[in-house]
Every structure is written in C-alpha cells, then in structure tokens.
C-alpha cells in the first residue's frame, strides 16, 4: 500500500485532553475527543427496517464504514473485524457486534448489505439508508467518503477506513486503522471491556 501525506483535514480525528478520571486510561492508544465521534444515526438494517444507533449499539460494537463494490480493503477490514469478534468470544468476551455501514447507498441495497454481512460474520449487521441518512451517520463518525462518479455502474469510492469501538451509554472509546491485525483489535477491545 502506498501512503501519501496530504491534508484531508475534514475527517481527521480531533485530539482532546484526557479526562481526569479515565477508567480506560491504560487501554488508550491515543487521546481522542470521545464526544466528537459517534452520536445519533438513523439507517436501514438488513431486514429493511429503519434503526437508530440505540437499536444497533446494544453492546460493544465495532463500526466500520465502507462499500461492497470495493473488492480489497473493505472485505479485508470487515473480515478482520469478524475475526477479532471471534477471538474476543474465545477469550470470554461474547457479544461484540461487527457493523458495516455503507457509504455507497446508491448501489448497496438492503439485500446486498445482508449478503455481504452474512458472508463476513453471522452477527455482522449491514446498514444502508438514504443518501441523507448515510451522510449524517458518516459525519457523526467523522468518516470521509468521496465517490468518483464515472457515469457508469463501476465507479469507485474513496473512503476513510477506521473501525470505531463503541460502547452503549459511553459511546466512542477507540479507533483502529486498516493496518491493524485481528489480534490487535481483539486485544485492545478486550482491554476496554475488562475495564468496564
């Protein structure tokens, strides 16, 4: 993978001072303004039902934004998250849910999201929605995306590739980059769950 320096400042994660009483202090890889990532969303689940963040994030949740036309990074990251959930279950942390939110709702129908999520993990939730719903969710999570509309069905979409660890009541606690391994995601997630 080629990494270039640039200034996609719009989606970068804003730093903030650590809280004085931080129960997760030993877990944090970085100090990120938790209040600035995540929040309310309304999307459509893989049964076609409209759901909110409260319906989806009912336990520890790994939230990823991507699209199913992406053949490489998105399935790589989604499978990584699925594997991390399995590792966590083996280590006694059942019930961590992987979530995949499309940033390409024009192509990612409810059926396509269901198929994609089912192939990745039995517990994975695939979410789509209207352009407005997806835009609002991505904005809440500071996820960046930009479609290269080519006028045909084969267009590609640039997108940030963070996975966000969300906890009910608490909200955002950590993010993982595309390069993190399933073990790294599982270990870091376990640290937060142990500190609850």
């Amino acid at each position, binding site marked *: 993978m080629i990494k270039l320096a640039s200034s996609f400042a719009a989606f970068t994660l804003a730093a903030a001072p650590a809280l004085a009483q931080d129960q997760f202090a030993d877990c944090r890889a970085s100090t990120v303004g938790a209040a600035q990532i995540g929040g309310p969303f309304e999307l459509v689940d893989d049964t076609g039902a409209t759901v909110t963040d409260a319906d989806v994030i009912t336990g520890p949740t790994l939230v990823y934004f991507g699209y*199913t036309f992406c053949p490489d990074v998105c399935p790589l990251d989604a*499978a990584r998250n699925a594997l991390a959930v399995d590792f966590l279950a083996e280590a006694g942390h059942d019930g961590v849910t992987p979530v995949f939110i499309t940033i390409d709702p024009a192509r990612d129908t409810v059926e396509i999201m269901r198929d994609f999520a089912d192939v990745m993990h039995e517990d994975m939730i695939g979410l789509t929605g209207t352009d407005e719903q997806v835009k609002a969710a991505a904005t809440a999570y500071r996820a960046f995306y930009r479609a290269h509309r080519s006028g045909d069905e084969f267009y590609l979409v640039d997108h940030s590739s963070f996975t966000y660890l969300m906890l009910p009541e608490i909200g955002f606690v950590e993010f993982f980059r595309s390069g993190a391994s399933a073990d790294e995601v599982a270990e870091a997630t376990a640290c937060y769950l142990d500190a609850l």
Partner: protein
Amino acid sequence: MIFRPAAAFAAFALLAPLASAHEYTLGDLTIDHPMSFATAATARTGAGYVVITNTGETDDRLLAARADFPRVEVHEIVEVDDVMSMQHLESGLVIPAGETVTLQPGGSHVMLMGLSAPFEVGDEIPITLVFEQAGEIEVMFNVEARAGAEEMDHSEMDHGEMDHSDMNHDNSETEVSQ
C-alpha cells in the same frame, strides 16, 4: 466464465489448502499462486492476487489483465491520511528485474467488475495477464476462503494467546491530527 470443478474435487481442495498453490512460467517471469477470495452471493466485484517474480535482467511490466467480465483493471491501493483510494494503473505495474512483486490485499490487485455470479471456494477463474516484455499468459485464479469470513473454520487457526498484560500501545501510531 468460471470453471467449477466437481464437488468432490472442491471438498478435497478444502482439506488440502497448500495444494492450491500453483505456478506458471512465462519467459523470465514466474507467476505463482494466482488466487481470489470467495464472495457474497450478490457481489459485483472480486479481486485477483498473484506473486510475480522476474528472474531476468530486464524490467517488465504488467500492462493489463483480461478476463470474461465487463471490466478488468490492475489496481493499486493508495492511502492518503487513512483514506483508501483505488487507482487504476493505466501504465501498468513494474516487475523489476530480479525482484518479486506480490499483488496482495491492501496493496495491488486485478479488479474484476460486473460479476454475474459469486465466486465460490474451489472455483477457477481464467485471467490473461499481459506483460510488456514477456507477452501474455492465461492463468487460473483459484478461489479460496477468506480468513475471518463465515466459510472459515477458526478452530485450528493459530492466532496466539490473547495476553492483555503484555499490551503495549507505546509503539502505536498516535499522530492524531489537531
């Protein structure tokens, strides 16, 4: 067209994943282990991965790939500040003399667009790789299960013990932008 060997063969292939590694030679190039991953039923894209070694003394270039799909391109993943972008390598991918170039997840791949049927474990996908120097060759990309995805049996995977006491984030990247 996708070749779908008899079920018995597919079952055997699952039991012997190492047997799926296969190799081709074209001039100075060795083309090893062309593969792809199984996809969802409604998937419209797939990616082909392969290891190419140039044993010669002249650089070569993977100019293009052809296959029986509406669009096939050689792509590279470019990451800019954690934003992933797929770029079509219109002038090809250089295979330097004496070196090995690996098309692998998160790096570069042959992108297959407009699938009319999903890729299933055991399928063989014929793809013609076109090189500037060595010419072209049709190779079979074997479809394999993706680790982590549902077809995979995790029980025998060696992912080490999770030892939380040994966690050390000091080496983690913390260049969070202000």
